[in-house]
């Protein structure tokens, strides 16, 4: 084996090593991208699901299929603060898609970060949806913020809420932030967060009468 062959082996080792390094790096990048993309997709889907659910329920604030038993929908919001809202509605069932004519109360509130200490994300919380006085049902959709801001008919932010309805809420600003519960490399930087904001009337029923 001459010097030339030695050079061939050395050269091929270096080139092969470089190719291997490139391959490993590419694999790492592919895995990271895969995680990031799929994580982003999950976050986006979670956000849309949360938004759809909130819109579905919020549209029915003050609604009752038997309108005679709840003639003043402006009394529909019972309690409201920055991360909690409780209101009167008439929930649909499969037997009664337009509601059964019996008033229900629905409550949304955000849990604490301690409840989800098992997830790698230190910021995510459970968003609870409580129907009447049933056991609170929470879902981990990676929600890190559920903030409600209320405005009166003058357009002013309500800083001091009346203790009983009507609360004088003319518009609600909903801010939601969703993060990946288990992001690649535990990277939960702000640019990985998906946010959604909507300023809405509480519901069409709310100002009907």
């Amino acid at each position, binding site marked *: 084996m001459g010097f030339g062959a030695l050079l061939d082996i050395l050269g091929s080792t270096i080139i092969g090593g470089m190719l291997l390094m490139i391959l490993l790096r590419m694999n790492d990048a592919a895995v990271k991208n895969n995680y990031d993309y799929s994580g982003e997709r999950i976050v986006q889907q979670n956000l849309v699901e949360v938004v759809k659910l909130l819109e579905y329920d919020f549209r029915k604030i003050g609604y009752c299929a038997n309108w005679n038993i709840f003639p*003043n929908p402006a009394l529909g919001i019972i309690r409201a603060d920055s991360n909690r809202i409780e209101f009167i509605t008439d929930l649909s069932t499969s037997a009664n898609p337009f509601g059964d004519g019996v008033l229900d109360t629905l409550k949304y509130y955000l849990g604490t970060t301690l409840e989800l200490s098992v997830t790698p994300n230190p910021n995510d919380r459970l968003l609870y949806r409580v129907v009447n006085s049933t056991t609170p049902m929470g879902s981990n959709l990676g929600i890190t913020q559920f903030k409600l801001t209320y405005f009166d008919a003058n357009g002013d932010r309500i800083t001091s809420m009346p203790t009983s309805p009507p609360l004088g809420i003319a518009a609600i600003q909903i801010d939601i932030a969703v993060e990946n519960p288990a992001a690649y490399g535990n990277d939960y930087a702000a640019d990985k967060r998906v946010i959604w904001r909507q300023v809405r009337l509480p519901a069409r029923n709310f100002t009907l009468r």
Partner: protein
Amino acid sequence: MGGKGALLLVLGFSLIFMVAGRNFNSMSTATVENFANYYNDQKSHHLAASGINLVTNQIFLNGALADQTWNYSFDNGTIRVTLTTVNTFQQIKELVSVGTFAGVSSTIKVVLKPSSFSKYAYFSHTESANIWWTTTDTVWGPLHTNGQLRVADRPVFYGKVTLDGSLVKYSNSAKPQFLGGFQTGVHIDIPSNGVSNLKAAATAGGYVFTNQSTVYLEFRGDSIRYRFSPTAAWTNVLASTFAPNGAIFAENANLRIKGRVNGRFTVGADGTSRGNVYLDDDLFYNQDPRIYPNSTDMMGIVAKNNIIITDNTPNNSNIIVQASIYSENGSFQAENYQNRPVAGAIYLLGGVIQNARGPVGEFKTVGGTSVIVNGFSKRYRYDDRFMVASPPFFPGTNAFEIVSWFE
């Protein structure tokens, strides 16, 4: 050999890149699809809402619109709206609108009913230019005026407030509290047939007093008594047989009323120079609905002209009025409000619907506090039952209102 190896290497890498690329593309597409589906949901919902708006507008213009189905094509979607009268007697109508876009459907259902003036805690066609709603004023039910709403400081409105005119603030510090909602651009005329419809109902199944200049009417629980002069003997009748449908009317006369109301009645009077209803003393329910929530006692007072608190001894120390009051051409006012003594307060449970706002007293300001110097102060509370029920044959607005919106 080396050439084949290189070829395999390139093909291998290409395959890996293609699989990874396809995977990434698929995920990107799924993310976009996710929002596209949300967009389709929203679009179909907005189409359904548009259908409701299109047809309710027709109903508002023509309350006699027959039950039917409308089909619209709009903005690359379709809308199907069905109008059904679900209660012919009460004229309750139901609208179901289905919006479809990109295969996604959304349904909205609304219920409409004829609107009655009795639902208002306060209604006026015009507001006086020098009367302001101030901090001491609280309105507990729906309020409407076709004029301007003048506010100073922090009046509180618990019901929905609607205006045709504008909101005029006494100063920039005025902060009216609209706890039940606020809407401008709403015009509701007082119809010219409200009183005549009551008269027709009284003719058909109630009682009409004719050829008298003044009718004195006292509710006494199950019975009613009446006379035509302050010194004449009373005629006693059983209320339920006297006016079976609850409508009592004084034709071309002034009507003077008082007493304890047991049941559902609407009294009224018309006439060019008469047509006033005088409140000679307390008029109150046999069962106060604030104490007995299931009370069925309900009173309406309808006048072609004014509804007047009589200047007499019984009314010099407060007056209780439990009724919805409707003045077609005039106002709710106190007789001799500028000269009568300080008479306490008007304890009204019900609503006031009047063409123009009338005076019930005069006040002066002492040390920043308003003090009544003639007539009455006001203690008006809304009777919540009027949100869903009306005294018999109480004038309607000749329009429909939406009472329920499912979406």
